[in-house]
C-alpha cells in the first residue's frame, strides 16, 4: 500500500515550505519532497570554497511578506532588519545613496538634480498610495478571467473601489501608467539619469526586459507594492539558507514532513485527476492534492507524462517566457574590498548596502539589447552585496564574500555555450567592478560563476530564470503563468501550483506559497 497524505508538495523552496506550513496548520497531513540534501531551493547558503559560505543563488529578502513573516513567527530567527541605505548606485566619480527615508534620499538626489529632489517625495507618496490600496491584490488569488465567476467579479469590483479610493486623478494616473514603459513613466517624473537608472534596475532585475519595453512600469509598481507590505528584512545571519531552515522549523510545529534527497519523478495522473507522486526510487505516494512549487514548465512538461496533459495546455506552457538572463558570481576575498566612493563617517552603514551599476536607463536598455540577439552584454547591469560585512560567520576572520548578480546574460546563446563563455563574462563583470573596487582583482581567493545554464542545473530552474517567469504584462496577475490558470489550481484536477511562477511574482516574498495554501483550503471545503 502506498503511503497517504492530504497534500504532497514538490520542492522545498521557500514557497513550498510556506504553503506546507499553512496547510499543516489547518490540520492537513503534509509532506514536502526535496531533491537536494538541503531545503531552500533558490534560497540557500552553500560553501563556495573552504571556509567561505555564500547565498549562492538569490541573496535578497527585502520584499519578504510581512504577513507571512508574522504568521510563521520568524521574528527571532536571526534575520536582521533592513539595512539603511537600501541601495547605492555607483557612478563615475559619484554615488547615489538611497536612504530608507524618502526625505533623506531626496537630499542625496539633490546633488544630481534639484528638481528631482523636490519631485521624489511626491513620487514616493504616489507609489505608497498605490501600494496601500492595491496591496491586498497581491495576497489573494487573482480573478479567473476566462470564466469570471460571480465571486471573482465581486473581487474585481472591490479592486475597482480600492482604486477609486485613491481619488479620480491618482486612479486614472495609475491605470494609465500600469501599461507604460518604465522609461516613459520615470521620464515624466524625473530628469536625473542616475536616479531613473537605479529605480528601474531594482525593478527589472531578473527579467528579460529593458526599461523601454511597454509594461515595465508595472514592475516598478510591483516592486513598490511588495516592498510596502514587506517585513523590511535585511540579511539572514548565516545567509539565505537560514531563512529556509527557519521556514522548515516553523512547519515542524505542525508536523510538516520534509523528505530531503527525495526527488519526484512523476506526478501520478489518472483520467485527468492527480492522485499523488512517484519518487525517483520507485515509491508511490498518494495524496488528495499535489502542489508544485517548481516552475510551470518543469511541472507540466517534465513531471507530467505527455499524454496526460492536453496539447493545448502543453503549448501554452511551452510559450511562457522563462528565459533566464542573470548570472550569479560569488567571490571569496582575502580582505575587505575597498570601495572608492564609500568613505566618511557613514562608511559602516554604506558597506552593508546593496550596490548597483546601472547609471542610466539607456545603459540598462543597451545591456538588454544584446539579449534580444542571443548575446551577453559587454556592459552588463550589476548588483552586489558584501554579506560577510554584516555577518562575519560567512567567511574566515577578516576575510569576505562578495555576492554578485549580473545581467543581461541570456540562457540561449546563439553562438557557443555558457561553459565556453562564462569565464569571459565573469572577467567583464570584474573589470566593470574594478573601476569602483580598485583592489578587487588582487584580493580574490576564489570565484564561483553560475551562468543561467548552471542555475538551471543546480537549482532546478527552467532556463535558469531566477524568478521562474518574466514579469511581463502577459505573465502577471490574472495571467501568471497563463490566463485561466492563475488561481493556483491547474487544469489537472487536484494539481496546484505554489511557486514563483504564480501570482504575485518571483522575487522572494512568500506570497505565492501563502495564496496557494489559502486557495487549496478553500477548494477543500467546497
Amino acid at each position: 500500500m502506498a503511503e497517504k497524505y492530504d497534500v504532497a508538495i514538490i520542492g522545498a523552496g521557500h514557497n513550498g515550505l510556506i504553503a506546507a506550513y499553512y496547510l499543516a496548520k489547518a490540520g492537513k497531513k503534509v509532506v514536502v519532497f526535496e531533491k537536494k540534501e538541503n531545503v531552500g531551493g533558490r534560497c540557500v547558503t552553500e560553501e563556495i570554497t573552504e571556509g567561505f559560505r555564500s547565498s549562492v543563488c538569490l541573496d535578497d529578502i527585502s520584499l519578504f511578506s510581512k504577513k507571512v513573516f508574522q504568521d510563521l513567527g520568524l521574528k527571532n530567527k536571526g534575520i536582521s532588519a533592513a539595512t539603511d541605505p537600501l541601495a547605492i548606485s555607483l557612478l563615475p566619480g559619484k554615488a547615489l545613496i538611497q536612504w530608507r527615508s524618502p526625505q533623506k534620499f531626496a537630499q542625496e538626489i539633490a546633488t544630481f538634480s534639484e528638481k528631482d529632489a523636490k519631485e521624489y517625495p511626491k513620487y514616493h507618496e504616489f507609489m505608497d498610495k498605490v501600494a496601500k490600496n492595491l496591496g491586498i491584490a497581491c495576497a489573494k488569488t487573482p480573478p479567473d478571467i476566462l470564466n469570471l465567476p460571480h465571486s471573482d467579479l465581486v473581487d474585481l469590483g472591490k479592486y475597482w473601489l480600492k482604486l477609486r479610493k485613491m481619488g479620480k486623478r491618482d486612479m486614472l494616473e495609475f491605470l494609465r501608467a500600469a501599461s507604460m514603459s518604465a522609461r516613459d513613466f520615470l521620464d515624466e517624473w524625473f530628469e536625473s539619469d542616475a536616479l531613473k537608472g537605479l529605480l528601474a534596475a531594482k525593478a527589472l532585475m531578473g527579467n528579460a526586459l529593458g526599461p523601454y519595453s511597454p509594461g515595465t512600469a508595472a514592475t516598478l509598481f510591483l516592486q513598490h507594492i511588495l516592498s510596502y507590505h514587506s517585513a523590511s528584512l535585511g540579511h539572514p545571519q548565516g545567509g539565505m539558507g537560514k531563512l529556509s531552515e527557519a521556514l522548515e522549523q516553523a512547519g515542524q510545529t505542525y508536523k510538516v514532513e520534509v523528505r530531503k534527497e527525495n526527488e519526484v519523478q512523476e506526478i501520478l495522473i489518472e483520467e485527468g485527476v492527480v492522485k499523488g507522486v512517484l519518487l525517483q526510487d520507485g515509491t508511490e505516494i498518494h495524496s488528495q492534492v499535489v502542489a508544485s512549487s517548481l516552475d510551470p514548465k518543469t511541472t507540466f512538461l517534465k513531471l507530467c507524462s505527455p499524454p496526460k496533459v492536453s496539447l493545448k495546455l502543453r503549448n501554452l506552457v511551452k510559450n511562457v517566457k522563462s528565459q533566464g538572463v542573470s548570472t550569479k558570481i560569488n567571490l571569496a576575498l582575502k580582505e575587505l574590498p575597498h570601495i572608492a566612493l564609500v568613505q566618511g563617517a557613514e562608511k559602516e552603514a554604506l558597506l552593508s548596502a546593496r550596490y548597483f551599476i546601472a547609471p542610466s536607463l539607456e545603459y540598462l536598455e543597451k545591456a538588454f539589447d544584446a539579449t534580444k540577439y542571443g548575446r551577453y552584454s559587454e556592459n552588463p547591469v550589476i548588483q552586489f552585496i558584501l554579506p560577510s560585512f554584516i555577518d562575519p560567520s560567512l567567511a574566515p576572520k577578516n576575510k569576505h564574500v562578495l555576492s554578485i548578480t549580473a545581467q543581461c546574460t541570456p540562457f540561449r546563446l546563439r553562438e557557443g555555450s555558457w561553459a565556453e563563455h562564462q569565464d569571459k563574462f565573469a572577467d567583464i563583470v570584474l573589470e566593470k567592478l574594478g573601476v569602483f573596487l580598485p583592489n578587487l582583482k588582487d584580493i580574490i581567493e576564489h570565484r564561483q560563476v553560475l551562468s543561467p545554464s548552471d542555475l538551471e542545473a543546480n537549482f532546478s530552474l527552467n532556463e535558469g530564470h531566477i524568478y521562474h517567469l518574466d514579469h511581463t504584462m502577459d505573465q502577471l496577475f490574472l495571467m501568471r503563468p497563463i490566463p485561466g490558470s492563475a488561481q493556483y489550481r491547474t487544469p489537472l484536477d487536484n494539481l496546484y501550483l505554489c511557486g514563483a511562477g504564480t501570482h504575485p511574482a518571483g522575487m522572494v516574498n512568500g506570497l505565492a506559497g501563502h495564496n496557494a495554501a489559502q486557495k487549496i483550503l478553500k477548494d477543500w471545503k467546497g
Partner: protein
Amino acid sequence: MSKKNVYDCIVVGGGHNGLVNAAYLARSGRKVLVLEKRHLVGGAAVSEEIYPGFTYSVCSYVVSLLRPQIIRDLELARHGLEVLPMDCSFTPMLDGNYLARWSDAEKTRREIARHSKRDAEVYGEFSKEMVKISKFVKPILEMTPPRANEIHLSEMKDMHGMKTRFQGLGADQKTQLLKIMTMSASEYLDQWFETEVLKATMAVSGIIGTFLGVKSPSTAYVLLHHYMGEIDGAFRSWGLVKGGMGTVSNSIAAAAREHGAEIRTSTPVDQFIIKKGEAVGVALENGDEIYAKVISSGLDPYRTFIGLAEPEHFDDSFLDQVKRYKFRGSSGKVNLALDACPDFTCFPGQGMHLQGDIAIAPSMDYLETAYDEAKYGDFSKRPYLNIVIPSLSDPTVAPPGKHVMSIFVQYAPYFLKEGTWPEKREAFGDAVIDTLAQYAPNIKDIILHRQVLTPWDIEQEFGMTQGNIFHGELSLEQLFFLRPVPGWAQYRTPIKNLYLCSSGAHPGGGVMGAPGYNAAQMILKDWKGK
C-alpha cells in the same frame, strides 16, 4: 461683424475625420462649416501633383479600415470612391528567395509551404482565429469609451455588452485575446510560425506608426487591425484608391457638401473663441471671427488644446496630461516618380507581385535592429520599407509607361540625438534608396523625382504634432478610455461645446473615420439634451 450664431457647428481641420464628422452633422440637418488651413481638404489623406504628370498619395497611401457604415451612409462610391484591391503582399529577400502572399488562399498556402510545410498548415488556422478575435474587438471601435472612474447607466450597458461578447468567445480565443493585448508581435507570431520572413512580414503591422520594435510588448495587438480591414464588408482586404488617397477625402467632402456643409480651404484658424468656459466660435488668422454653437476639432490633441486655446481655460492637471501625451513620430515617407518599373533581383519582371504592397522586412532581427538604431535617436540605416506602386493598377496617377512609387519608412525618430531633420533629410532619403537598391538594383537609374518627408516635414506640412501619423502613439496607455487623456475619452473636452473628432480620440489613427463618426454621434446626443 455679427455675433449671431451663424453656424450650428464649425469643424476645425478638413482631414478625413473632420470631413466625416461634418458630413454626419450636416446629414442630420445641422448647418456646418469646415475650415481647412491648406489649399485642399484631406489632411494626411491627399493626392498632390508634386512633379508634373505624377500624382502622389503624399502621406497616407492605402485604405484598410475605413468603416463600411461610413462608406454606405455617405454613399462614397457615388461620390467617386473606388478601392482597388491589392492582390499580393511581396517580401523580397537578399538570398534570392522571396515570400508572396496572394489574395488567393490556396496560392498563398503553396507559397508558404515553399518555406515551411508546417507554417502553411497553420496559416489558415491562424487567420480564422484572428477573425474570431477581431469580431470581439470591432464593436469597440464604434463605441464611446467608458469613464473608468465613474460608471453611468449607459456605460454599464456597454461594459455588460463587452463582457457578454467576451464570454461568448471560446476559452482559446479568450486566451489568445488576452495574450495579443499584451505580448510583442514577435513573441505572438513565434507561437504560431517558424519562417522568419513570414513572421517579419506579418509583424510589421504591429509597429507601423509606433515608436516600438517588433519585440516590444503590446505590439501584437495591432496585428488584429489587419484582420479587421474591410472593403465593402469583406474581411482582410487592403486597397489602393483610384486617383490616390485624395479621392477618399474628396468623396467624403462631396457627401458633406451635398448635405449642405460649407467647406473653406486656405482658411487657417488662429484660435477658439471661448467665453466663460464655453466655446462659441473661432478666430481666423486673417482676423475674422465666426460663431457657432459647437466647435469640433479635427486636429490632434496638442494642436487643439495647446495650439488653439489659452492655457487659462484648463486646469493644470489637464494641460499636464496633454503635454505628456506621446506623439514622437517614428516614420517618414519617400515618394518617387519613376521612368520605368523597378526590377527585383529575386523576382524579375513586372508581374502581379508588384501590384500589392512590397515589404522590406526579411527577418525579425532586421526589424528589431532598425528599431535599436532609432531608439537612441538616429534614423535606421536599413529601415523597414512598405512600398506600393499605385500606377500599376491605376493609370490615372502617372503618364503611360511611367510610375509613382510610395515608400513608407520606419524608423525615423522625430527627436534626433544629433543634427536636425532639414540637415539630415537627404541622407535619410539616400538610406532608403540604398536599402531598396539592394533588392531592386535598377531603382537608382529610374528615379525622375524624389520627395522625402521626415517626421519634421510631416509636422510642418500636415500639422501633425511631432510627425505622428496617428495623432499620438497607439500604445496601451493612450487607447480606449485613456485616449487622449484619462477622463476625457468621450469626445467632449473641458471646454463646453468643444469636441475632439480626430485620430487623437478613440479608437485612434488610420484612415478609418471612426473618431469623426463617433464624435458626431456624441455631439448629436448632447444636442438633444439642449
